[in-house]
Structures are given as structure tokens and as C-alpha cells.
């Protein structure tokens, strides 16, 4: 929107994630030009059903990332339970077993920070509803790298703590309602 060509979208969400993602992901057109990485706090001891839920609902293909998964534009990658999802380069996902961060594995911060290293100003980072502080530090890293930082408005969020922490850490972030975020994403084209 600012003349920068965009490279990737990273979305972090926790409590209330399913409902929020159901607003954002299904309307995206099949021609959406960027890869989308989604990190949701899911229990570590059971398989995640997120990809199974969203793949049939979305026009885009949704999968759970595996280690060294090649990155394809227009695919939605969910972080698997009990692993951090890092971006190795613009072509490759790498998983990691490192310690939980803020009690979370996957950690939103870890994904956002590694993505900021890879995409810098081409990145769009979005923090949605959640009941902890994860994502705040990572969003700040994206903003510092010149990328676009977006936070769901705490007022309309199912859990406001995570958006509030993100705004506090990254005051320059754009605060938007879910519907406005959805409209913005749909406006992105190659």
C-alpha cells in the first residue's frame, strides 16, 4: 500500500483464535499472492486440527507446516503443536524444539522475529485476540525492520490482553477491527 512489495503475512492468535481466523481466512481469494503463516497457541500433547478445519473452509490451501517445508505463495501454514515455526529464508520453513517462550511452544514471538530477519519491510505482522503477552516483542521486531504491524482492536477482541500488550510494545502499530483487517488483506494483490 506504501509502494513496498509485500512478501508474507504472519498472524498470531491465542484465546478466541478460531473465531477470529474464521473471519479473516475464508474470504481470502484463491489468487492471494503471499504465503500466510499462522501461529496459534495449541495444546502441546495432542494433534492440532486447525489445518483440517480451515482447509475446506478456505479458497487457499491450509496445511500444518513440517520441517524444511517449501514456502509457496497463497498457502496458509499453521505452526504445529509443541514446535516453534521459524522462517529459514524466503523459500523454507524450519521447525525448532527450543524451550517454550512465555510458556508457549509454538511461540508467536519466535515466528515473528525470524520472519522479520528474512522479509524485513516486506512483512505484514498481525496480532489478534489472546490472553497473554506473546507476539508483542515480535511485532516490535517487525516494525523495527520496517514491516507493517497490525493489531486487532482490543475493544472487539475476545481476549484483549494480547492486543493490548502488542500495542504497548509497538505503539506505531495500526489498530483495526477484524473486519477492517479482513478488508485490508483482501485488498492485497500481486
Amino acid at each position, binding site marked *: 500500500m506504501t509502494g513496498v512489495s509485500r512478501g508474507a503475512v504472519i498472524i498470531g492468535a491465542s484465546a478466541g483464535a478460531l473465531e477470529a481466523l474464521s473471519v479473516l481466512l475464508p474470504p481470502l481469494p484463491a489468487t492471494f499472492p503471499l504465503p500466510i503463516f499462522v501461529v496459534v497457541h495449541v495444546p502441546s500433547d495432542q494433534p492440532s486440527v486447525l489445518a483440517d478445519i480451515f482447509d475446506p473452509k478456505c479458497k487457499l490451501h491450509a496445511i*500444518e*507446516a*513440517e*520441517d*524444511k*517445508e*517449501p514456502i509457496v505463495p497463497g498457502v496458509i501454514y499453521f505452526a*504445529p503443536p509443541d*514446535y516453534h515455526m*521459524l*522462517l*529459514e*529464508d524466503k523459500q*523454507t520453513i*524450519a*521447525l*525448532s*524444539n*527450543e*524451550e517454550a517462550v512465555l510458556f508457549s511452544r509454538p511461540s508467536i514471538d*519466535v515466528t515473528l*522475529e*525470524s520472519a522479520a*530477519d*528474512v522479509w*524485513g519491510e516486506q512483512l505484514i505482522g498481525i496480532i489478534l485476540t489472546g490472553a497473554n503477552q506473546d507476539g508483542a516483542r515480535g511485532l516490535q521486531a517487525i516494525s*523495527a*525492520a*520496517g514491516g507493517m504491524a497490525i493489531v486487532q482492536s482490543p475493544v472487539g477482541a475476545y481476549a484483549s490482553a494480547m492486543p493490548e500488550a502488542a500495542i504497548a510494545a509497538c505503539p506505531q502499530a495500526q489498530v483495526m477491527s477484524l473486519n477492517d483487517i479482513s478488508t485490508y488483506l483482501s485488498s492485497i494483490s500481486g
Partner: protein
Amino acid sequence: METFEKIEDIEIRLLLEALYHRYHYDFRHYAMASIRRRLRQAKDNLGFATISAMQERVLHDPDMLPQMLRYLTVQVSEMFRDPSYFQAIRQAVIPHLRTYPSLKVWVAGCSTGEELYSLVILFREEGLEERTLFYATDINPEALHQAETGIYDAERVRQFSENYRQAGGKTSLSDYYHSQYNRCILDKSLRRNVVFSDHSLVTDQVFGEMHLISCRNVMIYFDRNLQDRAVGLFKESLSRQGFLGLGSKENLRFSTHAHAFRDFVRTEKIYQRNDS
């Protein structure tokens, strides 16, 4: 900003070169995103202003090496982590292994030993321990030493026991350890048939013919080329129709050696060498 990031990447490359030339630890083909994150942590926690300052120190001060290795190698494991993996070994792999008069099992990248002891217990319960030689290898001497002692923090035992139960354990995990103060000490008989050894998947070679290789969440820290080297080493090390078990989110799909293996238990990432 752009310039700053490039400088950091140069520093990281130089530090990894220094470790290789000075100490022969080769992290140069480890996955960059994770290495970058851990070196930043090391820099901050150890109080260095830059990664090159850290490199200067480790180059001249060998006492700094163990600290460095603690950051560069990841030691996060549990006994019977991913219980369904061990259940699949028990139900699908063991019946094949039973047909051999003697067995060799290699736990590659054994770290502090949790996965090794899980397999030894499983083999004992299936009556195969006596005829099996276990090789447990790692590059980190500290981790290997801890694996050899078989002592874990008592507060981890509840999780270990729950995993053991879910993995189809035949008795109670407490049959294999005793508690002392706040430590859990594994029965030393579990080490009867274990050889602990320093071995690098990056620089070392084949050392025996294995019937089962378990290498879980080790190669996720390698880049694609290094993964190919390690999988090639496993291919060469396996006996005909030998088994290779990986972590639950690892995959041979992206490997140049993919054709050399077939899915054996697909959902658990257990592969069998393809020797039809």
C-alpha cells in the same frame, strides 16, 4: 537496518568458522534461523556487546566452549516423548526385529539420554534387550555425560510416567528408577548394553550396521544439505530393510535420499530402507 542485519550475519558466519577451525565443532551448515536466535540469546545472557566480541572470547578461551555448546545444541527432551511413536515401535517395528538373532540400535543425537532409555525399557519389556547393542551418540560431551549418568530432575518424572503409560508401558516407570532427594536415578542395569560415544552427523562416518536408527528432532537444526548428508549416513548405516525413526514433524519428502526409504508407519515418521 539492512546494513545492521548483514553485519550480524557476517558475525555469525565468522563465529561458526572460528568454532570449526579452533575446536572442530562444525555448525556451519546448521539452520540459520535457529542458530541466529540462539546466538543472540547467548550474546545477551553472557553479557557480550556483539557476536564478534563473543567470538573473540571463545577463540582464545577454551573454558568458554562448553557454554557456547549449551546454546548451540538444543537439549529438550522427555522420556517417551510423543507416546504414539513408541507405541508404533512396539507394535509395528518390534515384530520385525524379533526375527533377528542380534540387534543394533543407534540413537543419533541422544542429548541427555531420555530417548535412549525409553528405547532400552521398551526393548527390555519386549524381551529383546539381551540381544541388542545400543549406541548412543552426541556431539556435546556435557549432554553425553549426563546421558551416561541417567539422573534426571524429579519434577520431570510425572511427565515421563504419563508418557510411559500412554506409550503402552507394561509395568510402572518407577520399576526402572529410584528417587533420591529431588533426583530420579535410573537403574544402571539399563546401561548394560549401551555404548555412549562422541559422534558427529556432520563430520563422522558410518560405524556399524544398524537395525533401527532413532534420530528425533536432531536434523531439524540442520540445513537441507546437511540433512541430506545425515540421511545418507543413515541409509549407509542401516541393514537391509532397517528402520529409521524421525521426529513427528520431520519428513524425508524433501530429501535427495527420499527414494531410498519407504513409509513404514507414516503417521509416526517411521521409515524402512527400501531393499525390495
